[in-house]
């Protein structure tokens, strides 16, 4: 008997999809592709007539952000259900869905190639990388739109973008296509933001990033790398330079501290720094046994990278249980497959030293209590459950915060320090200043940042058009 496309376990659970639409309304791809994509109806179709779904391009348009799963009242994991169908399609040699999906992406989504590599993971379907590379290469060869799609694109209003991560790049690309002169200010010597800084090369080949950034340059976008706003140029100076709108998307690069004894020791490193060093070919000496603290995607990336760097044993220590992990379940599974160990319900209390270096970690076991403000069960230490681990390196990945000190003081931020914006227009409380990406949402996925960049770009266009019309009317008086 042929094995069912959707295994019984999943089918059993998915029966209880009452089609509330929460997945669709949460999905960044739905916003990017509008009517073309609807995970709810795709899921229903997959359950009722799985065979008919196999050739559907929509199967390939899930960006693995798991926002649907995080909100689904039934805790369903649409990305993984779609994955089963993709595997099946590949087995049957149904490749057209994927091909169509690439052309849809090219038309509707900025930086489709980056998305394919960093978000969509077609390689997870059980096919050789070769076939994918072929299709994607084709995609890369066809340069997308040229400058100035709008007929009357005689815009003079300059737009400044601070930060060249996925949100900044996206906004720049769209605004430049409309015809605005765009300048990106980037503190690091090269553009790309988190894509370059912390995304492991195995997830995004740097050639892809380079070519996309080059395409942006070809569109006429000015890239002022190595320019840190506040140090090299002030926010006010940008304003005075005649930029009519500013999009701030500097991400969340400041690692949170553990706040425990021993954090200042050699070989206690923060995860983003570690990934940055590896990505820029700097020497990193990890020793044999590496402990990683945290349960998000950065922790997983750091763990997998540490293994690639030659660490013999990599252990992730997470203070809650698997269910509460913020990292995508798929990434966690992949990391575990590669040999990363995860200890749940454990929190470090002290880093012990030997001659100024990390020697080990004293930890305490946790238990889960009542729900906290994040809706997850709050971990609480179990008294007397302390134990020690021998470690050579401790990598801290307990989350990141953003930097807003370079921005005007009256800019509204929330309790967590994240910038407050109108979620539909990305406008901040200061006229002409827009913000998006991780600095608004907190650490999130590439696709969400791209969506924010797109929303901001269109909203900036509207804003500038409005101002221009006002000025024109004014002149006519």
């Amino acid at each position, binding site marked *: 008997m042929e094995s069912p496309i959707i295994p019984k376990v999943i089918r059993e659970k998915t029966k209880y999809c009452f*089609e509330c*639409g*929460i997945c*669709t*309304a949460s999905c960044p791809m739905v*916003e990017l592709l509008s*009517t073309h994509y609807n995970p709810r109806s795709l899921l229903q179709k997959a359950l009722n007539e799985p065979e008919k779904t196999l050739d559907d391009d929509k199967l390939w348009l899930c960006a693995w952000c798991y926002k649907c799963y995080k909100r689904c*009242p039934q805790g369903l994991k649409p990305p993984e259900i779609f994955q089963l169908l993709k595997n099946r399609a590949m087995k049957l040699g149904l490749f057209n869905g994927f091909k169509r999906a690439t052309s849809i992406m090219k038309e509707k989504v900025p930086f489709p190639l980056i998305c394919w590599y960093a978000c969509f993971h077609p390689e997870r379907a059980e096919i050789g990388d070769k076939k994918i590379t072929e299709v994607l290469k084709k995609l890369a060869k066809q340069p997308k739109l040229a400058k100035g799609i709008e007929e009357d694109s005689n815009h003079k209003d300059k737009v400044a973008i601070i930060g060249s991560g996925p949100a900044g790049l996206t906004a720049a690309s769209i605004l430049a296509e409309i015809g605005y002169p765009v300048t990106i200010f980037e503190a690091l010597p090269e553009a790309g933001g988190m894509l370059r800084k912390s995304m492991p090369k195995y997830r995004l080949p740097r050639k892809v990033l380079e070519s996309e950034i080059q395409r942006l340059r070809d569109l006429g976008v000015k890239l002022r790398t190595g320019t840190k706003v506040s140090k090299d140029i002030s926010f006010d100076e940008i304003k005075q330079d005649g930029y009519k709108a500013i999009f701030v998307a500097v991400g969340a690069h400041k690692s949170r501290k553990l706040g425990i004894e021993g954090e200042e020791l050699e070989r206690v490193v923060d995860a983003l720094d570690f990934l940055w060093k590896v990505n820029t070919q700097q020497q990193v000496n990890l020793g044999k046994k590496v402990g990683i603290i945290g349960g998000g995607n950065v922790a997983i990336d750091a763990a997998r990278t540490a293994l690639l760097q030659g660490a013999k044993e990599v252990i992730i220590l997470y203070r809650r249980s698997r269910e509460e992990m913020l990292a995508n379940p798929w990434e966690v599974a992949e990391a575990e497959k590669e040999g990363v160990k995860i200890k749940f319900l454990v929190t470090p209390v002290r880093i012990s030293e030997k001659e100024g270096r990390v020697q080990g970690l004293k930890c305490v076991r946790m238990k889960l209590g009542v729900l906290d403000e994040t809706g997850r069960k709050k971990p609480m230490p179990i008294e007397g459950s302390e134990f020690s681990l021998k470690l050579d390196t401790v990598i801290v990945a307990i989350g990141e915060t953003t930097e807003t000190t370079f921005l005007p003081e009256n800019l509204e931020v929330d309790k967590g320090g994240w910038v407050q914006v109108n979620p539909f227009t990305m406008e901040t409380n200061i006229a002409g200043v827009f913000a998006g990406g991780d600095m608004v949402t907190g650490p999130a996925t590439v696709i969400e940042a791209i969506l924010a960049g797109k929303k901001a770009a269109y909203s900036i266009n509207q804003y500038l058009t409005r101002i221009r019309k006002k000025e024109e009317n004014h002149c006519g008086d």
Partner: protein
Amino acid sequence: MVIEEKAKEEPRIGVYVCHCGLNIAGTIDCEEVTKFAATLPHVVVAKDNRYTCSDQGQEVIKNDIKENNLNRVVVASCSPRLHEPTFRKTCEDAGLNKYLFEMANIREHCSWVHLHEKETATEKAKDLVKAAVAKVALLEPAIETEVPILRKALVIGGGVAGIQAALDLADTGYKVYLVEKQPSIGGRMAQIDKTFPTMDCSICILAPKMSDAGHHPNIELLTNSEVQEVKGYIGNFKIKVLRKPRYVTDDCSACNECSEDCPVTAPNEFDAGLATRKAIYTPFAQAVPSTYIIDHDLCLNKENVMACDKCIQACERQAINFDMKAETVELEVGTIIVATGADIYDASAYLNYGYTRYPNVITSLEFERLINAGGPSGGSLIRPNDLEVPKSVAFIQCVGSRSEKGNLYCSNVCCMNTIKDSLLIKEHWPDVKIYVFYLDIRAFGKGFEDLYRRAKEEGVIFVRGLPAEIIEDSKTHNLWLIGENTLQKEIYKVNVDMVILSVGIEPCIDSDIIQRLFTLSKTSDGFFMEAHPKLKPVDTPTGGVFLAGCAESPKDIKDSVTQASASAARAGILMGQGKVTVEAITPKTIPENCQFCGLCAQVCPYNAIVVDKEKKIVEIIEAACAGCGTCGAECPFEALHMRHFTNAQIHAQIDALTEMNADKKIIAFCCNWCAYAGADFAGVSRMQYPPNVRIIRTMCSGRVSQKFIEHAFAKGVGAVLVAGCHPGDCHYINANHQTQKRVERLWKKMERIGVNKERLQLLWASAAEGERVASKVREMQTNLKKLTLDEVEKSKAAFSRS
């Protein structure tokens, strides 16, 4: 005596195989089973029948008893938990002692769980019939003893269900104790503004009933009280109730002077925290009793420390008394009605809806208090952040219901409650724009559809699809709802002034305690389980204990009241009869075997055995014994004769089941209340599992003697399962502790003699956990496949020796 003579006669057995329409015959070849039954020893008659429980079916049995002079009867049909009483009655009618009857459960435990394995199911049915025949041949007639029933009842919970049940019983003429945890009776209904579908004012129709209950000569109200201990059995319960002090005597005239002077303020629970109360207070205007109460946790005065005497000064009637102490009231009652109600789902777990973070997101219960004339806003619909009347509101359905995140079940009342609430808004503020975001609107009751139509007529906008998130505008505190209209396949972004989360209903927080006190069962939803979902909907598996209201499942007021009257009637029937017969399943001593070691007395959960080692006396107090049989399992000398579940009878069942292909089989000993009922539940739910398991019923898993298990292994059985109630849920207090000990002892022995101890499994499964039973069997079957013949021979030899 006739009875003894019958016992000595050569067994003449009649076997009746039921088709149960196609329920059994659809899977099992009943004619073949009948033919097989005819070949069994002592079987005189074997017949099959379409419906054995029908009048005609029973007539056949009665005729055969008379004409063929049958002295034993076996019916192979459904679960004995369903029809054993029916067929026992049939036997009695034909002059046969009802203890000479046995059932083979070939429906719940066979045809329904092996739907697609017709041949093996038929083989299994034959086995089950064979075991029943083997047991019935050894059954003995018995006469039941009668227990008087006290004509007093206890009702736990003073919500509308508890009040109704108490009034019905009191009006019939029985004394009723109504115990309520809160300072006043009234429950959830007192908090609600209007009721659906007729829009009556809730408190207006409830208050007279509360007052009746408060003044009824047959009702004794015990408010601010909790049940602490339950002892005894049907008809003769001994209850301890902890009555906490009010610190205000009955002289209180409810003038409120004390409350005005009290300096301590706290959120008022009755108003869902939207208003405040003092440390000395009355929960609401219509409270019964109206006597005020001092919240001791809040009051500045602690034990022996008087820091404030403002209330004492204010009270003209000198009704305040800080010397009051908690007291334990001891009650003796014949029947009990559990009406402990339900709690409201905590919506703050839905992070994306921002409840408690956004001031203008409230729950449906908070809304009831807001719209109620006696509530904090005097009945004016206002939004919490600026006290303005909202121009638009949105209701979100299924918050905490029909979801893995909250509860899997539908909470039953929220759809209609929202429709009612939307009409209430339209009635007073017709211009308010109302959205209802729903999954399915369930308007199934009398008059419900009309109300739904009215809401549509009034212009309430129903949108199918729940918001994925709510975003608050930080300046205006208005709320953006973003979701998918799944009928239009469009994303909506709706801006409203206020959001009302239609929160679900949960089992009440004390339900675990109540479950333990009365040894009740719970369904997987956490609500108490009825004895039979269709035919005994208000009875519990514990004799003399009944259910009413939301304790059993979420339900509206009408259903709660209906159920309350039903349970009052059920309790009334028992008390009206004044006596109840107790099953003749208590043990008898065999004095010649007894060594007076006292082990039986040690394990008896009821202290029903007295052993005097010196005088060499052993005595069983029958009235106290519940018949679990753990004494019989413990006795090393076969000195206890466990009536209807004797060693010989159970051995005969094991022998019958292991005669053929023993190494491929699993013998499962299941307790009547949980594991056996769980297996029944698996059957009713058609959960499929491998057909090689054979279930032997005992009253308690504590009856399962080590010898039974060893005997099964000596007979070459592949595996043995012992299954009982979860620890703490045992229907015989804690007899299943002994089960665990015995199984652990055997595991050690198996290790010692080199037998794979995986072959003996212990399972705790409640009556609702059919899937647990089924998956255990599946798991054991997987292991059984790996079992080698050598291993079987080895255990056979090892256990034959011992």
